[in-house]
């Protein structure tokens, strides 16, 4: 841990090195009809090796029928800002959920 990331809100990227294999994020579909779910990450020199390593590492016990690998640094993520403005809008908009509609409670097949 170096000094400059003291109390920083972002995660510093690992130092790129001459023979360091990049990091890949692995997503596994456990069954047909289900989404790919983030399973973890691994290191590999390129996409085809990343896929193969993911197969060996994350599906040894029949955990998957399909795998995606994505270079970790190709993922753009929402800002983890403490105030959470990014996710504020859906808050309070309960009318998007069925439970908001109480008067029809008890009506069958609704």
């Amino acid at each position, binding site marked *: 841990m170096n000094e400059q990331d003291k109390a920083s809100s972002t995660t510093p990227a690992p130092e790129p090195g001459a023979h360091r294999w990049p990091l890949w994020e692995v997503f596994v579909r456990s069954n047909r009809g289900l989404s790919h779910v983030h*399973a973890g990450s691994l290191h590999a020199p390129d996409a085809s*090796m990343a896929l193969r390593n993911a197969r060996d590492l994350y599906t040894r*016990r*029949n955990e998957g029928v399909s795998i995606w690998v994505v270079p970790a640094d190709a993922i753009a993520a929402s800002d983890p800002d403490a105030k959470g403005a990014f996710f504020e809008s859906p808050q309070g908009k309960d009318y998007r959920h069925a439970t908001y509609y109480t008067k029809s409670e008890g009506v069958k097949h609704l």
Partner: protein
Amino acid sequence: MTQSVGDSSASATRITPGNALRPEDIAQATRQGAAKASEDVAEYALRLGDDALILAQRLSHWISRAPELEEDVALGNIALDQLGHARSFLSYAGSAWGKSEDDLAYFRREPEFRSAHLFEQPNGDFAATIARQFIVANYQFPLYRELTRSSDPMLAAIAAKAVKEVDYHLDHSTQWVLRLAGGTQESRRRIIAGFKLMWPCVGELFEDDELTARLGDAGVVPSSLRAEFDRGVADVFTEAELDVPASPPATGGGRHGRHSEHMGYLLAEMQVLAREFPGASW
């Protein structure tokens, strides 16, 4: 909202045993007398089983020593696949003589082993291991594919499971041959050296003899696989800009129990504990 860390129902971590043909199933079938190999089929199964067993023994040595942790896991998988095939073939072979997989693995002497020399070749560096693995996969893949059509249903069933796994071994070793040949000067030098070291053992894999002739539809005639092997190798070698080594074939003799100097050490290590306690249960 609370995040569900530790949610054991997370679908991507589902763990199920699968339902493929297992060595235990074959051992059970043979014990119950549901499957009994003929003498010739047993001899043949012994060859295939010994190839896989000796290779698994070699590959397993890489676990905790591989060039990268991901490769520890990959080589471990291949070793486990080979060991699984070995157990199936040996269990079935043993049915002819009332012997278990362990009787055959641990209590035969060197001249009784029927594996070809390639499988007992020392691991060497990673390149030598990959060269050996590439040759093995290019041999085993068409072999098992053809064996799925064997007139012997048990051999066909074992091959049906094995061929899918070896398909992956073929892919794994191909990927590494391309990377080592097209990587750095150092890696290229090493993979060329690896193939030079292993190539003399290729010829033996495709030698026919009386047994393979007698087997007929039950087995696969080794020489019939050579053309496809050469094509498979040539495809990858062309892309990798590698030449087929000119090394002359070695004498071989593994199918008849004549092994290289390496075999004695391998067997001594593998068998030491079982032989210390003959008849013991583990």
